[in-house]
């Protein structure tokens, strides 16, 4: 199954903004020191920065109620802009995590295809919010 994990939380981005290690998306062993870089309430995303002796990468977490293919396209466009802004277009340095309550089957297909094709990027992680 494509889902990395399942959670039950009314406001996952706010929880992650307070505790980046919540839900086990990040761990101290693998992501080291994680801090909030940006919480965008309007666009519903959170950027976490992983640090050890300086910045070592970012995690972009987008939250959506329903994840349609149109929604996915707009998230990907936004993600692309963030990769440019944060790392000068180095996709290796940025993880994309999606939290949603509902999803379309073709979104799962596209993400799965993306993860198979872009072998030099970090795979997209999907988290199902069952709240």
């Amino acid at each position, binding site marked *: 199954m494509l889902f990395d994990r399942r959670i039950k939380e009314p406001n996952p981005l706010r929880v992650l903004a307070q505790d980046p290690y919540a839900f086990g998306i990040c761990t101290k062993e693998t992501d080291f020191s994680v801090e909030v870089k940006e919480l965008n309430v309007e666009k519903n995303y959170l950027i976490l920065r992983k640090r050890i002796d300086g910045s070592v990468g970012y995690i972009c977490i987008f939250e959506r109620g329903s994840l349609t293919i149109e929604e*996915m396209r707009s998230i990907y466009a936004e993600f692309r802009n963030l990769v440019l802004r944060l790392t000068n277009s180095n996709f290796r340095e940025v993880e994309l995590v999606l939290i949603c309550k509902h999803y379309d089957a073709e979104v799962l297909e596209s993400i799965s*295809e993306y993860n198979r094709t872009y*072998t030099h990027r970090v795979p997209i992680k999907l988290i199902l919010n069952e709240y």
Partner: protein
Amino acid sequence: MKGAFICTLSEEDWEKTRLLGIYGNRFFKEGTSKVLKDTQQLSIIRDLISMREGDLVFFHIRGKQTIHGVYEVRKTPYFDDQERIWDNKVEVFPYRFLFKPHPNYAHIAEYDANIEVHSLYEFIDRGMIQSLVTLENEQNIEARGVRKILVEDAKLIISLLHRDFKFRKNREKLEFAPYNPPSDVKPLKDCLYKVGNIENAIKAVIMYILAYNPSQILNEIKNKRELDRKELDFVNEFFIAQTTRKSVDIYARLKGIHILFEVKTDVADENALRQAVYYRDLLWQRPWINPEKDKIFVVVVGQRFQEKLKQSVERLKKMNNGIHLLQYRPINNGKWAEFNYVI
């Protein structure tokens, strides 16, 4: 836009080459009487076939480690194994083209002005040359006599030739006595063979089309908008990752649009796509790409496409565009090809 080329030759052949305005590429393996294999013959054609009259040419003299210029093409490449030009008992250097001092830079060429190869390498190390990583023959990398370079890089070489002109030129103006071949020599376009069997053959066809009729394969990408040929520049065997020497088969660019061609002789599969999208990620990081404004397209070329590849591209297109599959069909007994966009 005119194209630009750097051609490598030996020191002993330079004097005659320059005097007569004729360059020839080899038919036999260097230092032997063994004919080059088909792959190598076709790589020579692939590198030369897109040359047009008026294109800029520079010459890299191997032993001296110098680059000479500025010249322009006066006759496009052809094959002639009858007329012996150079003093070599075995080799006739039959893959030829003609050139003359570039009219805008005759003051440079007439005095055989040159720069040290190392002064060019300094700019490569600074990331200021886009289409060259080295002129040396490296282990495990195809030896090439002719390299197409981006015009932007050619402009830098012209400026270096002017910079060093005062110090690196002949004292006297040199004679130029242009050679002209018989009228019945065979244009290089007519020398192609094994299209559909050898990768360099189909690459050569694409290079020719980009030079002479680019709309044929670029219109789909331009969304049917009129293609302005003055904006187009392209190179083959383009090193996208210099340290690991990863090269894109063909790289073309128009204003703000970059196209990476990944070419397969027969079946293209998911590995071809994986490689091409990785190259696209690497290209995004080049300092001369504007990620906010530019677009990079990936075109996978093949005679056939694995069904899984087609599905994969269709699925990816739903969230991110810019991947195309270009099918080719060998025609005229493998001497040319027709193209058709599948996706």
